[in-house]
């Protein structure tokens, strides 16, 4: 292995050679990037199901199902299929198959109410309970429904369709899952297990019950009046996140693998940091230590100092607690210099794409570097004096960006931080 192909620790350099993205802004990198940098919001009134009586009535839904069943697994699969296809096409892998494994950040899927009701209706006159649903299950074949609600199915189908190698990996680290998928692909390449990895994340779980569950945890904004104004990360009047759908896919390769096949290099996944938090199921340690540790580890892993970071792609959910905690942790690591580093939250426009967030924001981070344009934090009208960051307010900004730090945090004490670079060092 030539020295030029390894990083500061002698590990294979990991590059990106293909990307795909779907969000509430649209399908594909082009449409997403145009709208994102124009400061457009993808958040809208929910039309998929009635919202009467619900505390939150808005979301960043993706209407991708043209015919057939609309459910979390079918939407998540359709989006993952679109982004994996886009990424593989850009990377130049044909239909012969992909020479590496699939790492898939999988949304939580289970039997939905439409399925329970359908089973119930197969058994008229029977007691309305699970025994009856089980009787319906026994009475005729529901294999399609079975496959739909198994947690491994979406990855199995993507692996089959794009002919990735071996047993696909379905993973979840809650709202850090997208970052974890990239991390796992990177680690596999660094171990020398594979020259390439397909990392996909997808989440299409805006159902009534999904929305209500987050609502009951007081995690969602109730700022329903103007959907496009609801997500306001780092603003004083932020009051929760907007639940959204989306997917992203990234083709990772070792630099050597990419160069040998003449692939165009879109950027480098240079470092990763991860630290679990044992403080609480939904809240971060008050001292921010796990997040601080993850950020420091990511920088060290990338061989960079805080001064080397040109831009921060924030987790920035727009909940009162997250944004304050994220600022405090960044300030602990960067010191006063944090106030000079541009930082923005894509979630101000696309909402929180949950399982997909880290991967969607990774794609936008690479576009930020290649296009020299930082997407704004929109709805920034009332700055929070306790968070005096340069959030690139409301309007995109032209800038030379060669390194990005991207944060992802999730329920269950999940913290993953990625460092990206435009060019191989």
């Amino acid at each position: 292995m030539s020295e030029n192909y390894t990083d500061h620790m002698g590990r294979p350099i990991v590059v990106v050679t293909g990307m795909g993205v779907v969000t509430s802004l649209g399908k594909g990198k082009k449409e997403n990037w145009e709208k994102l940098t124009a400061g457009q919001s993808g958040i809208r009134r929910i039309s998929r199901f009635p919202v009467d009586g619900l505390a939150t009535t808005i979301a960043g839904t993706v209407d991708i199902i043209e015919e057939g069943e609309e459910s979390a697994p079918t939407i998540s699969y359709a989006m993952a299929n679109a982004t994996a296809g886009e990424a593989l096409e850009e990377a130049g892998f044909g239909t012969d198959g992909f020479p590496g494994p699939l790492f898939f950040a999988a949304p939580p899927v289970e039997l939905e109410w439409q399925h329970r009701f359908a089973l119930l209706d197969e058994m008229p006159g029977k007691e309305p309970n699970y025994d009856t649903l089980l009787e319906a299950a026994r009475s005729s074949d529901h294999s399609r429904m079975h496959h739909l609600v198994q947690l491994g199915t979406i990855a199995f189908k993507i692996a089959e369709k794009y002919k990735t190698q071996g047993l696909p990996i379905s993973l979840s680290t809650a709202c850090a899952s997208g970052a974890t998928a990239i991390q796992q692909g990177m680690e596999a390449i660094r171990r020398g297990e594979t020259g390439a990895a397909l990392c996909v994340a997808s989440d299409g779980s805006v159902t009534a019950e999904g929305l209500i569950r987050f609502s009951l945890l007081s995690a969602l904004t109730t700022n329903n009046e103007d959907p496009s104004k609801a997500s306001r990360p780092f603003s004083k009047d932020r009051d929760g996140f907007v639940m959204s759908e989306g997917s992203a896919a990234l083709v990772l390769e070792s630099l050597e693998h990419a160069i040998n096949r003449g692939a165009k290099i879109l950027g480098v996944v240079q470092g990763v940091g991860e630290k679990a938090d044992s403080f609480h199921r939904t809240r971060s340690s008050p001292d921010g230590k796990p997040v601080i540790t993850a950020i420091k580890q990511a920088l060290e892993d990338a061989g960079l100092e805080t001064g080397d970071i040109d831009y921060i792609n924030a987790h920035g959910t727009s909940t009162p607690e997250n944004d304050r905690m994220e600022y405090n942790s960044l300030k602990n690591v960067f010191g006063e210099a944090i106030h000079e580093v541009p930082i923005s939250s894509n979630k101000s426009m696309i909402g929180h794409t949950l399982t997909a967030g880290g991967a969607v924001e990774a794609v936008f981070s690479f576009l930020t570097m290649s296009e020299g344009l930082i997407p704004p934090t929109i709805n920034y009208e009332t700055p929070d004096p306790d968070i005096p960051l340069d959030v690139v307010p409301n309007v995109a900004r032209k800038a030379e960006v060669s390194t990005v730090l991207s944060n992802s945090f999730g329920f269950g004490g999940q913290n993953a931080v990625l460092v990206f670079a435009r060019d191989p060092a």
Partner: protein
Amino acid sequence: MNDSKNEVWITGVGVISCFGEGIAPHWETLGAETAPEPVIDAERFAPYAVHPLPEMDWTRQMPRKDMRQMETWQRLGTYAAGLALEDAGMKEDEELVSTMDLVVCAGGGERDISVDESILAEARGRNDREMLLNEKLPYDLRPTLFLAQLSNLMAGNISIVHKVTGSSRTYMGEESSGITALQNAAARIAAGQSTHLLVGGAYNAERVDLLLSCDLGHYLAKDGVKPVAERQKDGGGTVLGSAGAFLVLESAEHAKKRGAKPYARLAGIESGLGSRDNQETRERLDGIMERLGVSPSSTTAVLSGATGCADVTDLEFEALRRRLGMDVAIRSYTTMIGNPIEANFPFGVALGAAALKNKSFYPSFEEAEKPVKVPPTTVVVSTVGHYLGEGMALLEQIA
């Protein structure tokens, strides 16, 4: 990179099944000269049988306040994780657990059956069922139930209760999640990306919602009291079992440095995915064993997590015998503890580790299983998922 690989040792095991808790009692019961009668409850969920949990005193591994935040599935995992840490001599060793990586294989958590059934009851007479959900769910769902349902919250609870806070990753995908969890965990230790980690999962079979999601595809046995191989004659099917299995894996160097005694060496894990067409499945299983480098030997035995599902269980046994010889001792531990889906593979590895440490093997769990001639020094653990995905592990005795 092969020359610089670290050996992966199993240095702690924590299991719970219908036979009780702890690996030593499991070995005593299941490793006795004659096999015990499996514990099966064929009444509660008839026509389905399940291997039920033993009576548990959860507070032995978790504070009451944390216990109340979890449903059975998460408690099982948190409890088994605590047993494994204890067994490895790591429990409450802050330095070790705060740098320990956590790898969990998980499904989804439990639903509130009474809320679901009350909605089903009202739904009968209504055409506006979506409105019904909006009327009921915001008031009837317990807010914290969501946290008991998220796949990665078993890991979250293990971090909270046992302070395992290096990194935390959760894998999904039914039986195959156990395979990817262990495969990834072992690879990280071998490559030096982790020095010590806790890996495993748990499954609560005593839930109508999970029975339903399995039997939608007609995967459950209708006569679940027969052993796995015997069941094949009557159409097969899987019998779910409540169980938890966690392992502490360490690099040999890390284990030696702290004077830890290993159970066994985890020498390799291989896996595959593809169509369940007979010929393709045969080729894949052959390929897995080829890559694992196993060959016929009187000192190799097999622990199979055979689901019991018709066709695929026969294909698994055939493949094992084709590669390892017609007389190879195969023990379907699922006959004894049921199929704990995500925990299926880790449980098999736990049983294999116990056998190698005790330099003996398990008796036949049913008539069709061949006896061992000499105690095995190598154990193959095989899991072929009820629906998709398959993998095998190679465990070796450490002299």
